């Protein structure tokens, strides 16, 4: 039975994959379905949902269409979540491999730096980084990656420590390969699976951190974010709570989709490894 088959037999994993597919569809179609500036005024202010079918989810305090904003917000969430996670995994894998493969003083220094990054609350670090450098999409991505690369680094290091004693690594040394070439061409690719297994947790954490940053107003001002929408809605929480609740539900579903699909992938591939 193929891994895909096993994946499809897990209802939670399929639900997660469907949520993610819907999210991708939203992000891709946002520009087609809702062209133009998503932050432009579309109707009367504070229209409740399900009243006017041209504005199905209603409008916010400034008369912007909530559904349009939701679609464009999906873009930001997904883009930041994936980019930050990719950066964190790449940096973590490289630093973990270097630390584990070289050992000695380099290892000690790199691991103390890793400790330091884990000691500082990652959200505070992201907050400080964005506020010092200035909010833009790229800066938010770097800020989130700064707080999340430590997990992959530790996992990669542990894996490399066990791989570096294997015969093929000794063989590579004997034929005179450069140690760095051994580390990155021979060892790192083999250490990757457990690091990649962290992806779903990291993507989910990145999406939540992005939302929290934009909730506090630290987001690219030219982009719609779900966190920003929640913050907008907060000012009229008593009269129009749906403005905060709707984008929040989108966030919960997104993160849940990432977890469920990720867990499904990890477990189905782990079974395959166990069988072989």
């Amino acid at each position, binding site marked *: 039975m193929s891994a895909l088959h096993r994946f499809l037999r897990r209802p939670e994993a399929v639900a997660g994959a469907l949520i993610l597919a819907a999210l991708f569809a939203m992000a891709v179609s946002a520009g087609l379905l809702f062209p133009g500036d998503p932050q432009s005024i579309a109707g009367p202010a504070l229209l409740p949902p399900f009243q006017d079918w041209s504005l199905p989810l209603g409008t916010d305090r400034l008369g912007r269409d909530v559904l349009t904003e939701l679609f464009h917000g999906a873009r930001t969430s997904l883009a930041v979540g994936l980019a930050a996670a990719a950066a964190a995994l790449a940096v973590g894998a490289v630093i973990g491999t270097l630390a584990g493969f070289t050992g000695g003083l380099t290892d000690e220094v790199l691991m103390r730096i890793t400790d330091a990054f884990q000691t500082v*609350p990652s*959200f*505070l670090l992201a907050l400080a980084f964005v506020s010092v450098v200035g909010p833009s999409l790229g800066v938010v991505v770097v800020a989130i990656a700064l707080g999340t690369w430590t997990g992959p680094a530790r996992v990669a290091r542990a894996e490399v420590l066990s791989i570096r004693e294997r015969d093929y690594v000794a063989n590579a040394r004997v034929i005179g390969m450069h140690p760095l070439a051994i580390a990155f061409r021979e060892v790192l690719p083999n250490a990757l699976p457990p690091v990649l297994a962290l992806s779903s947790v990291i993507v*989910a954490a990145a999406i*939540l951190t992005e939302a929290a940053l934009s909730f*506090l107003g630290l987001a690219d001002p030219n982009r719609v974010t779900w966190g920003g929408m*929640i913050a907008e809605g907060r000012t009229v929480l008593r009269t129009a709570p749906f403005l905060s609740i709707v984008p929040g539900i989108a966030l919960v579903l997104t993160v849940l989709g990432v*977890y469920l699909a990720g867990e499904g992938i990890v477990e189905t591939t782990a079974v395959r490894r166990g069988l072989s």
Partner: protein
Amino acid sequence: MTRALTLLRHRLVGSIFVLLIVIIGTFLLLEAAPGDAVDAYIVSTGGDAGMIELLRHRWGLDQSELTRLANYLWALLHLDLGQSVTFSRPIRDVILERLPNTLLLMVSATALSFGLGSALGIYAGARPGSARDRFVSIGSLALYAVPGFWLGLVLIVIFAVDLRWLPIGGIETLASDKAGLDRAADIATHLVLPVSALGFIYLALYLRMMRAGMAEAWRQDFVLAARARGLSRRRIVLAHVARNALLPLVTMLGLQSAQMLGGSVVIESVFSVPGLGRLAQEAVAARDTPLLLGIILVSAVLVIFINLAVDIAYVFLDPRVGASEAGA
């Protein structure tokens, strides 16, 4: 005990290095921030170019990077975090004033997430694979996915706006001259919602760890031995399976403290709790970078102390850590 002490000394030395790296990191961020302390001072008080030169010289800002780093370290050694421009007071005093509220919030939220999380984990893990196990695990995953600040807003809408059971924010009723037990009760009612919001998002973590640990423990020989001795299922679950699954959670308690400090930033902002997190948000809004970095430093020190405390607690909880005592 000697081995435990060696371990602790090793940790302590490591912590000092870690703290040094954090300090250098915050210094670099401080340097990268646009404008320096003199700019901030001049904006609030006014002054000409000559005044700026004089101040830069007096505050040592015209010296080389390394000298400034040394000055920064020297000041920190004297517990001097500098002056906050927004509050016109020493940063240390501002932080110390806000710290107790954050600690109260953190300790209560940790107790909630650890207590309820491990209890639910034991409940689910007592019968692995059962319907209740699946229900609790999927529920915890859903909880994992909820952003804390949004959960806070939803709680406010339900319990403060609609039902009017609990206050909407703040740490206590202002100008109420309550004292003693009345005041404690007042603070407690104000804390119910923020503690729930902060505690519930971390609850899932302990629950899932407990459950996974129990699944692992069920397979161990000592469980089989306990069964063979004819112990009741309840006793096996509580005294053998859960007990062994609990230890890793204690380690997690230390590791999670940094995350919880970060999480309290948004929760304190949502509920207007005058703590360290809200102070961080105020510092960002006012572009008071030295204050923000001071908060980061204090948080890092706090996290280091919590983790050391966890290490010490571990020596007492896990007999294997100090096991060489008898042999040595």
